């Protein structure tokens, strides 16, 4: 490599790290042009111009005009042309274009995955020209540590990773084709049928995911509980109570439950046998992204999006490896000893790391899932500086899980004493950890309780101090939460580790689902129901799964990207044709829900004066100004009205003022913290200067 080389990175932070690692002095020159940072590093007599993208600088757009469907003719354009919110990409493109002049070598140094490969490819292809693609090489790294980056530089393959790029290109094009056509079809169905415009969207993965949520909701709403009985009994040994478990967890009929109760109440039990077993518990494998997101939700209730964001910031700080990985494995190429030596420098991990370092051999527990691009998430051993609370928690989780994966199996001693109570068999069970093994490293995150039994012997008589046949009911399945939804998508093979979090977010943004636990809204319900009735293929998990398989096959060279895109077009054609014929019906049905939702959204609360009307948000048709008035105004029975703030979004809170009874609203304005207020301008609380009306 001679002369000047352009090194394309994905984000400014990564560009700085890469430039620092590659510069022989470790201090590259930093520049900023029109707000775009870039660096010049020197390595073996070559000037490396390290530039950064801003995520995707190019995207898929419609060729030709018209806001209609079907649309199958697409092209790649600068992101700012297709999306107004991507305006800043324009200067990045301009600066990269200028810096690439006279450059002789090109390196793709974006994150090593499909998206990263595609980001660098489109920059080289559309800014630097076709020729650059032939000269370009690819850095492959899993951490942003100097060591890993220099190794990646020294061992670069001579060309770009075209199968990965092609897979990325096809994924973007297929997702665009589905997204644009189905979303336009939905939006236009309402607009053409009723004249009302509301952006509605549905996509290749969104559809089946929303359908899963709807199916679960139907299951819950149609659920009928069935009674069963459990025998709840306790014994007492040395003044301490222990539960006695009846041999059958559930008794199906009341009669039988009462018979058991009658036979055992007031009786004594006799231990007929005691079994003690040692059970080995293997360490948990290191985290894949999905595992980390689920564990962070379980431990801290962090949403998958929050966890991903925290993990990505830790990666950019070179504290952990690349987090968007499906792998649960730590390959031999990772220097485990070096990572542990790094962790040992942190007081919280010093003893733990030392324990592992003193082992004659380090063999990590490997999980089943693998990822050809990256290992499981693991710490790099670099010492963190100041971390936010969220970053600290995620970092601790990753470090402890990494060390746990290197730990020995834990051993539990389980005791099961069979107790005969008047011919009925009960179990007195105990469980105790006898060898901590890996649990020592993961202790803060383990929530199992131990039941330590006293010494028991066969023939010992035990009093039954309480015994009841308690009626219980079967329960409906739980609503999804962001974490269980993510797991379901993983299990069903829809979306990728990089896109699943975004898809769940989109469902929230569109108003199809809300809350945590995740509940489908009326709009979401109507969308799935209507599509299910008229175009069930859009919700088909089979079609999505098949496309995912095809997209993966592009990476392995078994399928061509163009063939997969063509297949997507062929799959879409009949769906859209069918949709067109039923567009009016679909539009009318969706509009009914939209209108009902709009009406509901305008209700701010009950009227405190007439007590029968609703205070609604009303807009004056002449002035355009808004105010709140009672719904009974229209029948002449109540003329209560209140002025409203004219700026910002107004939301009902469901609360009423404790002093005057008027509804309390939430006002949301961009750049400001939302505030809640009683809408009654003359509220006595306001006169007294008290803030909290609710």
């Amino acid at each position: 490599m001679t002369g000047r080389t352009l090194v394309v990175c994905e984000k400014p932070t990564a560009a700085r790290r890469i430039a620092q690692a590659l510069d022989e002095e470790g201090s590259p020159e930093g520049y900023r042009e029109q707000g775009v940072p870039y660096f010049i590093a020197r390595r073996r007599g070559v000037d490396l111009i390290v530039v950064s993208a801003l995520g995707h600088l190019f995207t898929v757009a419609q060729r030709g005009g018209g806001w209609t469907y079907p649309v199958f003719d697409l092209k790649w354009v600068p992101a700012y042309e297709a999306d107004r919110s991507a305006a800043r990409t324009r200067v990045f493109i301009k600066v990269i274009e200028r810096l690439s002049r006279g450059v002789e070598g090109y390196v793709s140094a974006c994150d090593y995955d499909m998206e990263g490969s595609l980001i660098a490819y489109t920059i080289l292809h559309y800014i630097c020209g076709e020729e650059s693609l032939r000269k370009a090489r690819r850095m492959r790294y899993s951490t942003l540590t100097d060591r890993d980056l220099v190794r990646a530089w020294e061992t670069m393959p001579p060309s770009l990773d075209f199968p990965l790029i092609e897979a990325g290109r096809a994924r973007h094009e297929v997702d665009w084709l589905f997204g644009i056509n189905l979303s336009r079809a939905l939006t236009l169905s309402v607009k053409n049928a009723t004249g009302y415009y509301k952006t509605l969207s549905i996509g290749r993965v969104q559809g089946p995911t929303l359908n899963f949520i709807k199916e679960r909701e139907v299951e819950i709403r149609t659920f009928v509980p069935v009674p069963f009985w459990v025998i709840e009994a306790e014994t007492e040994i040395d003044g301490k109570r222990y539960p006695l478990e009846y041999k059958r967890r559930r008794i199906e009929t009341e009669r039988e439950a009462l018979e058991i109760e009658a036979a055992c109440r007031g009786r004594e039990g006799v231990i007929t046998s005691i079994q003690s077993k040692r059970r080995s518990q293997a360490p948990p494998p290191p985290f894949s992204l999905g595992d980390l997101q689920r564990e962070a939700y379980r431990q801290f209730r962090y949403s998958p999006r929050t966890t991903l964001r925290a993990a990505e910031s830790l990666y950019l700080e070179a504290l952990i490896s690349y987090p968007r990985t499906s792998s649960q494995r730590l390959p031999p190429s990772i220097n485990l000893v070096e990572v542990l030596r790094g962790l040992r420098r942190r007081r919280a991990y010093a003893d733990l790391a030392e324990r592992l370092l003193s082992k004659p051999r380090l063999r990590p527990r490997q999980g089943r899932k693998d990822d050809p691009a990256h290992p499981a998430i693991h710490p790099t051993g670099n010492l963190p500086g100041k971390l936010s609370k969220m970053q600290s928690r995620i970092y601790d989780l990753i470090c402890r899980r990494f060390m746990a994966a290197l730990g020995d199996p834990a051993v539990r001693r389980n005791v099961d004493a069979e107790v005969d109570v008047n011919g009925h068999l009960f179990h007195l069970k105990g469980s105790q950890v006898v060898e901590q093994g890996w649990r020592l490293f993961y202790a803060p995150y383990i929530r199992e309780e131990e039941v330590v039994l006293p010494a028991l012997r066969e023939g010992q008589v035990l009093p039954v101090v309480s015994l009841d046949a308690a009626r219980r009911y079967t329960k409906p399945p739980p609503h999804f939460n962001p974490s269980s939804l993510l797991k379901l998508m993983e299990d069903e093979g829809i979306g990728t580790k990089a896109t699943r979090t975004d898809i769940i977010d989109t469902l929230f943004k569109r108003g199809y689902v809300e809350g945590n636990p995740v509940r489908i809204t009326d709009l979401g319900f109507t969308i799935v129901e209507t599509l299910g009735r008229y175009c069930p293929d859009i919700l088909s998990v089979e079609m999505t799964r098949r496309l995912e398989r095809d997209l993966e096959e592009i990476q392995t060279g078994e399928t061509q990207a163009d063939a997969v895109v063509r297949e997507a077009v062929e799959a879409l054609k009949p769906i859209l044709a069918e949709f067109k014929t039923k567009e009016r019906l679909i539009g009318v049905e969706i509009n009914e829900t939209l209108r009902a939702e709009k009406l509901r959204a305008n209700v701010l609360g009950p009227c405190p004066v007439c007590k029968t009307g609703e205070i609604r948000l009303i807009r004056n048709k002449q002035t355009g100004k808004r105010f709140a008035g009672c719904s009974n105004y229209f029948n002449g029975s109540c003329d209560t009205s209140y002025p409203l703030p004219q700026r910002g979004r107004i939301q009902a809170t469901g609360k009423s003022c404790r002093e005057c009874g008027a509804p309390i609203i939430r006002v949301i304005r961009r750049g400001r913290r939302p505030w809640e207020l009683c809408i009654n301008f003359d509220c006595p609380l306001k006169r007294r200067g008290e803030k909290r009306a609710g």
Partner: protein
Amino acid sequence: MQDRCTLCGRRRKGGSKYCLYHQRAYENLKRAFERWRQALDISWVEFLKEVAGNPETGEWAREVAERLTERGLL
């Protein structure tokens, strides 16, 4: 609105007086009743009252149970 569910106004399912969802809830009620009867030796009327008052009962199943009780369609 003869083609609409008597409980929610959705389109009716086939010859049923309910929509797809309330019909499913109704079928679940019938299936569950068999198990309740074996478990408690309970009548259909008592069963509907129990189910309507049970916090685990789904919203649509409760609506069907209440409607059947109200109308005496027992």
